[in-house]
């Protein structure tokens, strides 16, 4: 049984079919990449897994458990964490506070206990602080710990977003375009981190990405999508050379009667 099983999932926004009968499996311990032109439905699949959208048909199972029964805020306790394409950090908080929110799903204390800062709350705070420190160390965010997100450069914010997802200690990590907007060096760092996440932390990773270099470097299996439909699945090399994929990205090379190349 795979870790994540998506079967025949379809999602429509009005008349637009965003995801068209897509099926995929993510095995435990692998890094699975979703590639495809913009508008292919990749982030939409993430949003389906995160339960922000409901599919019109199909099923999603995590470790055999029917994910469609859960709401978006229950997903982290099922040990799925995600990052967002357009960074969704808490702008008016520090890096540390952002990472601490990532620990929310581990919370055991009640509001009442928090208000009076009971010993249990104190112990839990200490534990969260320690756990977050490990993430900070892993991602080398020490110098940014107490800085406001608002003042940080884009590359650092992407790393904080990754850290926040890691802080929740997931089994499955969804990375939405982890390298977009990053420099070559930062992308290399990201590649190393993803590798470490997979091998050292034993977390399965599913990522949406355009940077084929990163995809080839870290992924095991890759699936190409276009217009909501599945085009090809295989290793990075296989998918990149698949004729349907090439056509989706670059067109067929034929010139139509009107003189424009048909894509």
């Amino acid at each position, binding site marked *: 049984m795979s870790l994540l099983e998506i079967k025949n999932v379809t999602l429509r926004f009005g008349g637009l079919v965003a995801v068209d009968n897509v099926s995929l499996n993510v095995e435990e311990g692998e890094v699975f990449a979703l590639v495809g032109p913009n508008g292919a439905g990749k*982030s939409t699949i993430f*949003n389906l897994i995160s339960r922000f959208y409901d599919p019109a048909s199909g099923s999603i199972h995590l470790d055999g458990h029917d994910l469609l029964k859960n709401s978006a805020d229950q997903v982290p306790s099922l040990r799925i964490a995600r990052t*967002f*394409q*357009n960074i*969704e950090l808490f702008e008016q908080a520090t890096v540390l506070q952002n990472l601490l929110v990532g620990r929310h799903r581990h919370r055991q204390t009640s509001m009442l206990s928090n208000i009076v800062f009971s010993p249990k709350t104190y112990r839990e705070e200490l534990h969260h602080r320690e756990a977050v420190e490990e993430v900070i160390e892993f991602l080398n965010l020490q110098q940014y710990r107490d800085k406001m997100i608002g003042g940080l450069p884009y590359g650092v914010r992407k790393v904080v977003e990754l850290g926040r997802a890691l802080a929740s200690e997931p089994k499955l990590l969804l990375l939405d375009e982890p390298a977009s907007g990053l420099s070559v060096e930062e992308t290399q760092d990201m590649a190393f981190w993803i590798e470490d996440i997979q091998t050292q932390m034993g977390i399965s990773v599913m990522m949406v990405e355009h940077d084929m270099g990163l995809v080839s470097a870290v992924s095991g299996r890759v699936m190409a999508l276009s217009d909501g439909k599945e085009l090809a699945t295989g290793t990075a090399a296989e998918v990149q050379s698949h004729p349907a994929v090439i056509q989706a990205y670059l067109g067929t090379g034929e010139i139509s009667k009107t003189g424009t190349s048909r894509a």
Partner: protein
Amino acid sequence: MDFLQLIISGLANGCVYGLIALGFVLIYKATEAVNFAQGDFMMLGAFVCIGFTNHEYMGLSFWLAVPLSILVMGILGYLFNWGVLRHMFGQSQTSIVILTIAMGFIIRFIAGAIWSHEPTSLETPFAGQDIRSGGLVLGIDEVLIVVVTAILTLAFYIFFSRTRIGLAMQAASQNQLAAYYMGIPVRRIHSLVWGLSGMVAAVAGILFASKGAIDPSTGLLGIKAFAAAAIGGFGSLPGALLGGLIIGLVEPLASRYGPPGVSQIAPYAILLLILIFRPGGIFSQTQRKKV
């Protein structure tokens, strides 16, 4: 007949609410700003006209005072945006809400300081005159309100759908940066919209003051206009007008046929119900953040 009188009177009130709501929605649609002081603009417009035409003030001819006050309010609206709100460009909506609330306080104070807090009526050439038709007695002021409102609505429709400025306003309301890139002078357009809204408020005020007495706190009936705007979904001009008419009708009907006290709270109850159940109004314009 009695019932019909109630209806007409309710419609007249409704038109005033609708005009206030129109000005409110104009600003909201174009600039995303929420003008909590729209009711106070109306009150100010009425007092400016009173200041021009009433004999205890300047005593000018009514037909001169009306366009003058509309112009003055238009300029004030323009200046308010140009001088104050421009600096708020890009800031959160809540700040602008709070700013306009504060503006309302200041406008009330200034009106009270210049024209006193006593209830005052606007002196019009047709005060007290009626149209009688088949047992119906209609005040000319009430009929005028309905007619003027209808004309204004048509004018706005044409303005927004057929003129370049109207289109530019729509563009600026959807995406300010993109409108800039297209060469639309967004900030000037915003000021124009505020000016337009000020003018509409002046018309509403003049109409309202011509049929009853007003004082600086009259602007607070603008809150009922919010209910009207909500019915229209905040993004629809005809919806705002329709909402105004509905509220205007509900009040006298509830007062006559409903349990005591209901007619006072009816507008607020309607506002609350719409916000809870159909926040997009009857003509919905939904939006959702794409992540």
